[in-house]
């Protein structure tokens, strides 16, 4: 009861409200003249005393910070050309997109409205159904549509997709690269062609038939150097698929027939990079730049390019050694025996799977459920 009598003390608030309401009634449209702040300028008289108390003296800033004021228009000091380009109506498509060979989705166009059409063409009858309309897919299926992402758009690396692992085969390819580089040198077009893409379809046998003579690190080619150089510099892109399949046995035979002196050819920088590039193109083995600088002869390049074969897994080693071959009660698994494997071995997994499927739960993993959020909280990720 006592509280209601005390309500009367809020006199100042009650004074302010009727004045605003009266002002609002006098205006023609409240919404048109509406300010952002709802406090009227007359109200500032009432709030001055509390601002003075708060700031202990003269209060800084405007009395009503929420009332919008007209800002002076920002003057740009940009040149006129720049201002022109920022105007709407100009094509702002990036140049890379504009010049792309890809079939990109067209710009959005709007059909003329029905009224406009009827104004220009009185015989226009709006369609009642979608018959005869061309079907275009949505943007999300753009790249799946035929002609938009064909084989020509697939990435084809410079290096061979099939990586050569065997050292012998690698050596044969290196020899080919050396012969080709020497042939280009003898033809006098090496400096021109060192940075270009050499034709891949050159005959392997032709290159390998040539003899390399080494004297004090200088190599000379004996054989049909001009034919090799011509095959390399020909523009014909014919033999894409002529993958030079050299088996390990063939490679070994070839290596026996060669004198090992060709590996002592001294390398200068252009030859070094040319060999590296050619080797990458033929075998897919890329020698890192940092290591390439250390290679002074062909032998070094071979050392850098050849890698040790992948070490065998423990299970493969055991199988090779026949370690447990005579123990029938020992089983060697080639991968870890996980909880699912254990359940499969006792036959419970099919039951678990069936029950999970029955409840629409993911069989493995968490499905759509997010990861454990509490763990992120604990580790401070969120």
């Amino acid at each position, binding site marked *: 009861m006592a509280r209601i009598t005390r309500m009367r003390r809020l006199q100042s608030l009650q004074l302010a409200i009727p004045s605003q309401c009266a002002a609002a009634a006098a205006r023609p449209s409240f919404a048109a003249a509406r300010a952002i702040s709802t406090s009227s300028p007359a109200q500032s008289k009432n709030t001055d005393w509390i601002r003075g108390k708060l700031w202990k003296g003269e209060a800084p800033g405007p009395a009503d910070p929420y009332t919008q004021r007209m800002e002076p228009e920002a003057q740009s000091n940009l040149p006129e050309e720049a201002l022109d380009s920022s105007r709407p109506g100009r094509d702002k498509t990036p140049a890379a997109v504009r010049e792309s060979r890809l079939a990109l989705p067209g710009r959005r166009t709007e059909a003329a409205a029905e009224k406009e059409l009827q104004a220009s063409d009185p015989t226009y009858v709006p369609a009642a159904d979608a018959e005869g309309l061309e079907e275009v897919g949505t943007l999300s299926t753009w790249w799946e549509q035929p002609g938009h992402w064909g084989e020509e758009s697939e990435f084809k690396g410079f290096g061979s997709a099939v990586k050569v692992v065997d050292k012998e085969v690698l050596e044969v390819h290196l020899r080919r690269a050396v012969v080709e580089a020497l042939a280009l040198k003898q033809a006098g077009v090496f400096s021109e062609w060192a940075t270009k893409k050499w034709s891949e379809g050159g005959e392997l046998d032709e290159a390998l038939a040539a003899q390399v003579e080494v004297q004090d690190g200088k190599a000379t080619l004996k054989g049909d150097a001009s034919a090799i150089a011509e095959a390399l510099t020909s523009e014909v892109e014919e033999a894409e698929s002529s993958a030079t399949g050299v088996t390990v046995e063939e490679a070994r035979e070839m290596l026996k027939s060669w004198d090992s002196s060709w590996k002592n050819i001294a390398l200068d920088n252009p030859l070094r990079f040319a060999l590296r590039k050619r080797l990458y193109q033929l075998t897919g083995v890329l020698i890192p730049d940092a290591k390439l600088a250390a290679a002074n002869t062909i032998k070094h390049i071979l050392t850098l390019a050849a890698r040790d074969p992948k070490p065998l897994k423990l299970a493969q080693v055991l199988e090779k050694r026949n370690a447990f071959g*005579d123990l*029938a*009660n020992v089983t060697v698994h080639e991968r870890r025996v996980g909880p699912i494997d254990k359940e*499969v071995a*006792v*036959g419970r997994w*099919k039951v678990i799977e069936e029950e999970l499927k029955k409840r629409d739960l993911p069989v493995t993993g968490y499905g759509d459920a997010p990861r454990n959020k509490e763990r992120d909280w604990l580790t401070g990720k969120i």
Partner: protein
Amino acid sequence: MKRIRPSRWSGQLLQARRGAGIPAARTPLCLAIRCQSTSSVPASDSSTLDSSSSASPPPPPLPAPSFDRAPQSAKLAALHARLSLSKKIPLQTLARALVTPSADANPNFNNANLAYLGSTIINFHVYEYLVCKWPRLPMAILYEALRAYAGDESLQQIARRWGVEAAAAPGEEVDPGLLQWKAGEGHVVNTRWGYIRSEAAKGKAWRRGLSSRVVLDSDFGDQVSSSDPERLEYNALQSEAFGSVVQAVIGAIYTHCGRDEAKAFVKSHILSRELDPSKLFQFKLPTRELAMLCAREGFEPPIARLESETGRLSRTPVYVVGIYSGKEKLGEGAGASLDVARRKASMASLKAWYLYSPGNKVRVPSDMMEQGAKPWTAPHIDIGEII
């Protein structure tokens, strides 16, 4: 440990013969496409099968692991070695011994036949041993003694001590070294043999004396009924499944290695277990039974005499009573009252009569099948029953 070479073994149980074995009435439809062994594929059908098999969906999974996988199972090899089985028994047969009819109903691939063969061998050897070792055991006690040696619960214990483990759910992908069984509803007990009584509808106890149990009922004296297939509980089904493994292994030994090996195996794994038959007895009227025994055997009627007593007026009196027939003392018992002591003395006398044993080195009839056996001397076998 030596390597087991399954290629050397010749398994007659493994090779399914074409058109042999299953009668047409029992052949389910799935038998036609069920080929676990390469030798069982009919050559004539292959051409017709090939054309359809390319388009047809993959066959349904087998109810139990294929025998082809048996040589790869470490568990199976370990079990084979642990049991010291002969190399004549292939791992595939051992794998088949682990497939119960509840997992795979096809009799060509489960252990039902082996288990029945094995159960007859076990029961035969246990029976002859019991009868020769304790020739005066009453029939009811004999049944229970047989059950204690060769019943499903005992065989389950044996199988578990062998290290046989059950698969959680039988299936094709399961390790063949695990016991394949499940507690299903369509369970057929096909290892029982007996007669169905015509008056079975009148109740279990109707005209079911011991003599008719010997003639009509199963090996353990249990009634065989077909009209009301008994609903076994989980534990009973489990012990039956585990027991069938032991029986099937013994059946396999008999099949591959012969009679003597099977007998030796039964002796070392089943008869070697200790059983105290005196604990099987339960007497209703021991004094009367003893009196009838003395009358039957022509002894003087038994007389109970108080031999000593202490604390007759105390809270815990002890009376020692001896039963005498003439001048011979038949037994002695102590009790808190004169009557209890007399009954105990009669029970002791009766057990002394029933548990007579000619000794541990008792000859059994199957010993005569050995080469160069000594001539048979018939053992004394009592008629057993008194009341």
